[in-house]
């Protein structure tokens, strides 16, 4: 019934508008010099608004952006992003200026003649070649960074960790002493074996299932992703890492943590962001927040997509070894 009420109000507004337009002049239809003058000035006004908003966003929103990359591979990402952002920022400011300044400068006037200027191969060559060269340089660096991130050499000997996604949580499994993950398949999911590990596989015996990720600083970690039901995406924004989890296949992504959680909490950007957040939380009467690395789901996966998270803690290698040795192997847990 309430919907009808809203629709009724909308109709009432429409009818009153109809009545108002009776007295409005619907004869004013084509722009004259006065309109050109007004609209030209408004274009300049809009340009100022746009500049102000862009500058405000660039400065004021710096604080809400993700802090510097917490992975070594992500450094190139940050670097490339900064270069790209500066470049497109400059082009954006220049182009918007031209668009709205020309709109004002060449606003129509009664005796003004437009210039018949249909073509210039030289100009067109310039604005084909300059973007082309810039782009080639940008993607040269980009592709180098991409290959650096995506290909993991055998000699790097990374620590293997499996991340298993399902509606609506994450599970993880460490490869154990042999640094090789046992096979997994949905057919093996039963009771405590919630990740569907094939316990007849010898590699599975020393695997360790955990509820939180703990990573050693400075060691390369190779994540293997599987999904139990629908697509999910393992997003670890602080490490500039993301990979989809696809039912029926194993995907992977690797990075090397650069800072421990404790070190990251001392990072100036993190402190500034955390302070900002805590000011807001305090006003709402909520507990203060402490920075942690997180794994989030970033592919629409169902009703609770918005609440699929796992904490990631980065520690010194010695502490990592100690923590790992305290975890039970699957052979101990699943009889």
């Amino acid at each position: 019934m309430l919907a009808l009420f809203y629709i009724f109000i909308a109709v009432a507004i429409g009818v009153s508008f109809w009545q108002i337009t009776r007295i409005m002049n619907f004869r004013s239809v084509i722009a004259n010099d006065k309109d050109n003058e007004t609209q030209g000035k408004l274009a300049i006004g809009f340009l100022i608004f746009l500049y102000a908003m862009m500058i405000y966003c660039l400065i004021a929103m710096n604080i809400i952006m993700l802090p510097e990359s917490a992975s070594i591979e992500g450094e190139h990402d940050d670097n490339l992003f900064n270069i790209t952002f500066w470049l497109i920022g400059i082009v954006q400011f220049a182009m918007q200026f031209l668009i709205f300044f020309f709109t004002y400068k060449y606003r129509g006037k009664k005796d003004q003649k437009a210039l018949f200027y249909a073509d210039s191969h030289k100009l067109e060559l310039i604005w084909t070649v300059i973007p082309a060269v810039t782009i080639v340089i940008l993607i040269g660096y980009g592709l180098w960074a991409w290959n650096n991130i995506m290909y993991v050499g055998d000699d790097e000997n990374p620590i293997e960790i499996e991340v298993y996604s399902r509606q609506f949580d994450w599970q993880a499994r460490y490869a154990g002493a042999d640094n090789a993950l046992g096979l997994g398949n949905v057919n093996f999911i039963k009771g405590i074996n919630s990740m569907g590990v094939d316990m007849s596989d010898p590699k599975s015996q020393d695997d360790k299932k955990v509820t939180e990720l703990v990573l050693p600083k400075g060691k390369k970690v190779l994540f293997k992703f599987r999904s139990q039901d629908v697509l999910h995406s393992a997003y670890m924004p602080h490490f500039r890492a993301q990979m989809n989890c696809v039912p029926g296949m194993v995907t992977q992504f690797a990075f090397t943590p650069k800072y421990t959680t404790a070190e990251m909490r001392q990072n100036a950007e993190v402190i500034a962001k955390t302070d900002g957040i805590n000011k807001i939380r305090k006003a709402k009467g909520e507990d203060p927040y402490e920075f942690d690395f997180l794994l989030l789901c970033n592919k629409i996966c169902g009703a609770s997509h918005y609440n699929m998270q796992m904490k990631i803690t980065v520690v010194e290698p010695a502490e990592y070894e100690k923590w790992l040795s305290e975890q039970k192997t699957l052979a101990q847990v699943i009889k």
Partner: protein
Amino acid sequence: MSDHHHKETFVTKYIFSQDHKMISKQFLVTGIFMGIIGGFMSMLFRLQIAWPEKSFSIIEAFLGDHQTDGIMNPDMYLALVTIHGTIMVFFVLTAGLSGTFSNLLIPLQIGARDMASGFLNMVSYWLFFLSSVVMVISLFVEAGPASAGWTIYPPLSALPQAIPGSGTGMTLWLVSMAIFIASSLIGSLNYIVTILNLRTKGMKMTRLPLTMWAFFITAIIGVISFPVLLSAALLLILDRSFGTSFFLSDIFISGEVLHYQGGSPVLFEHLFWFLGHPEVYIILLPALGITSEIISTNARKPIFGYRAMIGSIMAIAFLSTIVWGHHMFISGMNPFLGSVFTFTTVLIAIPSAVKAFNFITTLWKGNLQLNPAMLFSIGLVSTFVTGGLTGLVLGDSALDINVHDTYFVVAHFHLVMGVSALLGMFAGVYHWFPKMYGRMMNKTLGYWHFWLTIITAYGVFFPMHFVGLAGLPRRYYTNTNFPMFDDLVEINVFMTVMAIIGGAAQLIFLANFFISIYRGNKAEQNPWKSNTLEWTTPVEHIHGNWPGAIPEVHRWAYDYSKTDENGEYVHGKDFVLQTTPLLDGEEPS
């Protein structure tokens, strides 16, 4: 054809009409209606994003069982973003934009009595209408409409156990889209055939207005890519209802292992984006074509670099079919493919840059008549540049890793194709309204509409980039479960307020549009002093468009302000209709 004066009844004239001008109006009004639904949905979910814990009576009023005490349920949030995307992309910006202006302008601008097949044209509209009806019906299904995102990736879209919207709602979505694709294909084939075969004498391909080139190439990419979405939809229907395993494998859900073996969701992603990416250009190219025409006319200047514009339309169209993988950098496909798609993707920046520079050069030293249509076109150039530039971030696979599926992407594509194409569509409506209804729209309301729209569009989507850079994933019902996003509340509220003002500003357009149909000032034959053929037809619509013979064309469409050595207009005025023969000694441009 024009000699046949069939007896027209109300039904043949207004409902089952085969006249392209009437069909174009039908497309437009249906598109506007769908736009109201799609736009209204975005208002509802923006309320949820800004004030996730607050109760709204408007949500209580419209969402029925899918809300609790005025707060929408998570399922419904996903349903709203899904249907908003589907409606805006396909029903408003594909059918509403292309359907309207291709139908209206193709016969009129090339000098034809009607489309090659008036009957198929009518079928195309009625299939579109039918698909719209099915889509709207799907909103009222008990378990809710499709909710797997507009990209409907399986397994989520295939399994009702995964999300309730993947039951009947999803079935209707697929049926609706299958009908829609049939409509689009029939329409596109008709456009291609008409442009190739029915041009009037003298209308060489190189004399076509850029609108025609844009619609022509758009139709071609539609014909190439839409069938692939149809096959993806059919395979998904088979997986859903007939137990095949094209896209599904190894699934354990609701406590049981499903029988599916050997399929791959990644295959679906390939098929989907093989249409999905060209679709962006199916939406955008017509808007750019409309803009070219309007900017040139209102700048009283030839469009700069006509041939380069055609070349860049073709380059964009070709590249658009080989870049789909940039939506899948982190889908699990081979990283080498990622490199290839990065390369092809950023190449698109080159023809796009050429287009932007050519638009700006057309403004330079013009005599700009700042009509509402012109302002919307200038606005399009602005948002196209802003949105296009961030494509350099997203197209670069290494950078995409961290912003993929965040609000950065949402901001990017809304500016570059959503807002840009909408601005182009509005520009087209303001410009060709006199051709459609024989009356003019009010300019004051047009100005209000434009400035409110562009300010709020930037107000919503510019700050949104930074929300994405803060790492916030899209399609989150609320981010209150993550303290790390608590500092985004203020921006989210700001964006929602902007969105509501922007949404309300569209009411000005609706009022102007519908009132002008009945009350608008009677139009002159050529109100904007334009060169193209549509302005040589009488204001009152007649079957066959021209009362006498079809006019012959003697020049290109852009002889605006053509002057001789003394700086005098060659033809005594600043425009020369395409039908005007060359004077003695006049150089063709």
